[in-house]
């Protein structure tokens, strides 16, 4: 698959020529009648006053622009949050759903690839209008119309077939765990990755890409768990994957199945709580979106992100380190766990407990810029890669600023952020190394 994206701009939009078979083929089958009926279905059955108020209350002041890294990077008003609403739901509501297939094509590109659903703009709009919610409604409409970027739809298909994001078969999952167990035993004698232990203190879940591409992260987590003597377990059957691309395609029915499977997997084992690996979107899916869809105000079982867990290990003095990591580091606050769960202070505690030289990037905490990969944007794949990296220009500037102050390593406790930042670092020649907290802790861990 070619990674190039044609640079011809169409006349009236900020969208470059679309080279995505999921969108193009999907639009081919649309008629104005079908579009109108699906839109009416979504608007009348699935939304209410919230959407109406968000679209109607916007006074077009433009203050949200500075909240959006797309706008800041590209300096084009079509990429401002309100600008994206104007090109999607505002027009749809004004025309009561009477829009063309061509309109849906553009709207799909905007909703799926020009918004990371990072919710930063809600902090810049004086009214607190939540444009991420509006974009999610647009994605929902596109999903119901069958107009979804090919790559992310493939991961959604994988979810529906295997209950994980990466087409990992049941035997491959267990096989991967056993392989990592064996690898880790070289560092740590008698190390186990305990499977299906009932009543464990901690149920550890990861995202599909960990066994698929980053199996060493499972190995590192196993070493840390063993080093601190944790009473933990992982499930041998589906439910191990906490990720959720269906949440981002707008396939909420499938999202509910996935979240139920994950929660039940832990609850069936009577685990005391779930600890999840360093992933942002998965955290959003279990802590904020998926549980609500299933009717739980908050998750039905305590569920904490790795930042929280690692921080706890240090606060309770359960972990011994040889010495602090001494290369100067900076910290990227992932949207879904800082703006999404306020873990930025714990993340800083953890940095200070593990590293001797910490340099802040600015702005930070709730105000940090997204990596441009979140919200399923990176999962839309190669057809949108160049555009995604261009929209990370502001992020690159922020990274370079931290580098000038001396930072050599970026800690990013989120998989999507890793993917996005890796591309940004490469494209803009930032020359910094990326790490998870797990990488750092594994490196400095004092093994018994």
């Amino acid at each position, binding site marked *: 698959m070619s990674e190039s994206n044609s640079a011809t701009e169409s006349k009236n939009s900020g969208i470059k020529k679309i080279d995505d078979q999921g969108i193009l083929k999907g639009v081919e089958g649309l008629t104005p009648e079908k579009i109108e009926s699906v839109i009416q279905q979504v608007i009348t059955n699935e939304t209410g006053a919230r959407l109406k108020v968000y679209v109607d209350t916007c006074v077009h002041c433009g203050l949200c622009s500075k909240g959006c890294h797309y706008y800041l990077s590209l300096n084009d008003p079509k990429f401002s949050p309100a600008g994206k609403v104007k090109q999607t739901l505002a027009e749809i509501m004004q025309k009561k759903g009477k829009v063309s297939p061509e309109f849906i094509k553009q709207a799909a590109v905007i909703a799926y690839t020009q918004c990371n659903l990072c919710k930063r703009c809600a902090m810049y709009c004086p009214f607190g209008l939540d444009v991420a919610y509006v974009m999610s409604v647009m994605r929902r409409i596109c999903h119901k119309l069958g107009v979804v970027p090919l790559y992310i739809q493939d991961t959604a298909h994988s979810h529906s077939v295997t209950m994980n994001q990466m087409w990992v078969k049941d035997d491959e999952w267990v096989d991967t765990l056993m392989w990592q167990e064996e690898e880790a035993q070289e560092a740590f004698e008698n190390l186990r990755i305990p499977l299906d232990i009932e009543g464990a203190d901690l149920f550890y879940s990861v995202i599909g890409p960990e066994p698929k591409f980053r199996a060493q992260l499972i190995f590192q987590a196993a070493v840390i768990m063993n080093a601190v003597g944790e009473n933990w377990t992982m499930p041998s059957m589906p439910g191990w994957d906490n990720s959720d691309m269906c949440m981002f395609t707008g396939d909420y029915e499938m999202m509910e199945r996935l979240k139920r499977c994950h929660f039940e997997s832990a609850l069936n084992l009577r685990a005391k709580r779930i600890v999840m690996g360093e992933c942002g979107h998965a955290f959003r899916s279990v802590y904020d979106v998926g549980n609500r869809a299933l009717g739980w105000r908050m998750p039905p079982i305590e569920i904490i992100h790795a930042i929280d867990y690692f921080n706890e290990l240090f606060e309770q003095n359960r972990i011994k380190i040889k010495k602090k990591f001494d290369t100067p580091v900076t910290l990227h606050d992932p949207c879904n766990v800082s703006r999404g*769960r306020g873990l930025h202070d714990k993340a800083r505690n953890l940095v200070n407990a593990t590293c001797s030289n910490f340099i802040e990037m600015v702005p930070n905490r709730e105000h940090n810029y997204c990596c441009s990969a979140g919200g399923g944007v990176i999962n839309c794949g190669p057809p949108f890669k160049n555009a995604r990296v261009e929209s990370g220009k502001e992020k690159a500037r922020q990274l370079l600023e931290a580098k000038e102050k001396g930072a050599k390593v970026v800690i990013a406790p989120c998989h999507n952020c890793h993917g996005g930042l890796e591309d940004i670092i490469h494209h803009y020649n930032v020359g910094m190394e990326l790490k998870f907290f797990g990488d750092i802790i594994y490196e400095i861990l004092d093994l018994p």
Partner: protein
Amino acid sequence: MHDLYSFFTGPFAWLTFIVFIGGSVWRFSSLWQLAQKKDGHVFEYMDTKFALRSIAHWLVPFGSRSMKLNPAMTVVTFLFHICLFITPIFVFGHVILWKENFNISWFTLPNAVADVMTFIVIASCIFFLWRRITLPEVKYLTTPSDFVILFIVAAPFITGFWVYHQFAGSAFMTIIHIISGEVMLMAIPFTKLFHMFLFPFTRGYIGSEFGGVRMAKDW
């Protein structure tokens, strides 16, 4: 002229109050009912403490990062909204009308102060117009109705300024002033001006989400 004056300060004024209050109640209650039917989560997550925390930060000048990034807009917006509300309620000419018609009265602003405040509203509207025409991110969002709304808001103040300073044709302008004020009030329930009533709810809801679920600041 006198007949016109009587009509716009009499029956039409009553119509204005009915449309403004009735329309606002109708719009608000229809949104409320729709929310109860369709947006259960809004009521579930709404949290008084976090809602007020967020509203407070956004009602204090420079209380949010967004305001710090846009200092001119912040100063103008605050002055504009304060003057927009205070001036018509406390200007001497209006309080006299309340006294004459309903025999109720209250504190009045010194004329010079009211004059300056009126001027601030007009100047702010010019600033907003300038933003709409020149700033690309605002220009892109601007629709014809945004200009109409700006004009509806500016008109009572421009005409009021005119009448107070007795410029040419001020008798006729008095009637235009009354009509423009009435048009503004009647427009509130049916235009984006309704944001004055929705602000506490939109801000309060996102404040509740950020405070109660996301455990993060939203300013």
